[in-house]
């Protein structure tokens, strides 16, 4: 055979790309949520998710069942993020975007440091929400975990869509982010809306971390650092204002970096992060609104 192309390999690498992208999608959702509800990007989002994973680990370690720990962690993360927002973001609420960005960078170190301080750096594991037993169809292997992660992302997209579309709270969140001054006139407590946005994003981040940790088999304090860049790239690819876009973008990105790594010999598997960078740059240049975002004129 002249062209003995390994179709199974192509399919397998695509499925693996979906599997990786499925974990990035969850953090990408958190980034989209905070962007939509507060208008900023939280560079500490990944580290906060990592911190949530350690909380979950401690809860499981103290004998809670997996699901109890899961939901308790989400609750703690939401409450914790609201508190953090009140303490460190509120004082700079009126400040330029750059100031807020720097504060979130400071927060990145604080959260990372706290996690290293409270928990030793040894390798840990978190139980799986879904079965990891392999399933093989036509030579292509995957697991329930992969499907589960993607299903959770899509479920959360529906939830977010419903929140922003049908609830007063969602409307208030959006209004507060888009036009704080007018929202204030309408009686929306803008400052609290921002805090709530932080809380919800951290809740999503917690889910993301708690599903990423078992997907990567084990974790330590560096868990979410590479994931953050991929999540940024996925969110940008899908459109940073679109939850569905964030999930689709992350899945696409996962497939893209894998196929490029597999079939473009020069790039290979150790240049995945620069490929993600190229995706971010390419999308921002060609179509800044992303694949799923609405192209809208921005006020200058």
């Amino acid at each position, binding site marked *: 055979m002249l062209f003995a192309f390994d179709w199974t390999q192509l399919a397998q690498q695509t499925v693996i790309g979906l599997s990786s992208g499925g974990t990035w999608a969850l953090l990408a959702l958190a980034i989209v949520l905070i*962007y939509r509800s507060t208008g*900023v*990007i939280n*560079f500490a989002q990944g580290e906060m998710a990592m911190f949530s994973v350690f909380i979950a680990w401690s809860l499981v370690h103290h004998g809670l069942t997996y699901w109890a720990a899961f939901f308790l962690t989400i609750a703690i993360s939401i409450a914790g993020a609201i508190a953090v927002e009140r303490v*460190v973001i509120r*004082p*700079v609420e009126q*400040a330029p*975007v*750059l*100031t807020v*960005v*720097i*504060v979130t*960078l*400071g*927060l*990145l*170190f*604080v*959260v*990372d*440091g*706290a*996690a*290293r*301080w*409270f928990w*030793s*750096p040894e390798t840990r594991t978190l139980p799986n929400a879904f079965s990891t037993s392999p399933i093989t169809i036509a030579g292509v292997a995957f697991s329930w975990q992969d499907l589960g992660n993607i299903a959770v992302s899509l479920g959360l997209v529906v939830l977010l869509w419903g929140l922003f579309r049908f609830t007063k709270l969602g409307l208030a969140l959006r209004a507060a982010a888009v036009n704080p001054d007018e929202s204030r006139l309408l009686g929306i407590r803008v400052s609290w809306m921002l805090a709530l946005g932080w809380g919800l994003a951290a809740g999503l981040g917690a889910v993301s971390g708690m599903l990423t940790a078992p997907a990567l088999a084990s974790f330590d304090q560096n868990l979410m650092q590479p994931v953050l*860049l991929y999540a*940024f*790239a996925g969110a*940008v690819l899908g459109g940073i204002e679109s939850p569905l876009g964030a999930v689709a973008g992350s899945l696409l990105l996962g497939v893209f970096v894998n196929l490029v790594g597999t079939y473009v010999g020069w790039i290979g598997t*150790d*240049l995945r*992060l*620069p490929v*993600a*960078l190229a995706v*971010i*740059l390419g999308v*921002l*240049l060609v179509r*800044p609104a992303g694949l799923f975002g609405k192209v809208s004129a*921005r006020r*200058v």
Partner: protein
Amino acid sequence: MRRALGMSLWVAMVSAGLAVFLFLPHFVSDFHSRDLAQAGAFFIAIIGLDLLTGYTGQISLGHGALMAIGGYTTAALIVHEHWRDVWTIPLAGIAAGIVGFVVGLPALRLSGLYLALATFALAVAMPSLIKKFSGLTGGSQGLQFLESSPSQVTGLSGKVTVLGHTMTQNHFLYYLTWSIGIVGLGVAWLVVRGRGGRTFRSVRDSEIAAVSSGVNLAWTKTFAFALSGVYAGVAGALYAIQNEIVNPLSFTVSISILLLVGAVVGGLGSLSGLVLGALFVEYLPTLSTNVSTREGVPDFIYGAAIIVVMILLPTGAGGLLRRLARPLTTWLYTRP
């Protein structure tokens, strides 16, 4: 009368600054001059970042990558082309300036947070890119000047003679870096003082207003990026010369964050406080490990210090200095 007084006060302050620059090494230990030289390299990069972010409002979280371009240009010229280390500095500046210009082109279409994201991604991806071009960059090992071309390293014998003055290598690095830093500060001052500064600031404050008053937006923005790149490149070159190596692990995203923190602490949109910003980022990590070496605590303190400074001093040291000096300047510049 008061004008003249103001003028002489200004001259006095500049002279005092120069005197500190000239004599400081004689009041601290020899090693300390080296520490200060490293702060000087950060200072230069921070000036460039302030020109970009403070004056034209373009956020860069990727200046460490531009520093890497400068550092690696210097290293490649020393190791592959056998240049003397100090003579590589101009070329390192030019190389990073060109890269800055290229980065500035896409930046034209990106504003605010998007630019922050794109430059952040650049900073994260830089070490892998450096490692990939291992023929030029030495891969994960990096390039080591003392090992491969010791004769190009100034001060190898421990003594350096410049214009008839003999000094230690650490003093030489201090004077080299901070002389360039002072020249760089002067150039920046000239750029932002007159029409150039007004153009820069108009881009930052309102692009529409800037365009309608005849500012060439594209040119101004890319020029700011290129100029900023030159500063970062020179800083990277000096950083490499001081350490006598370059390595991908030295140009991770943390150095980009460090520079931005330095610029913000120094005070964006003013040049007076940037020295303090540079000293802040140079000494903060050491100070935080002095508090406790318990794992995590240094990172925690580092981050907390950044947040506290941002909350208490949103305009940075520059803003604080201006506020402190306000009664004086008001008095000086009001007609009696």
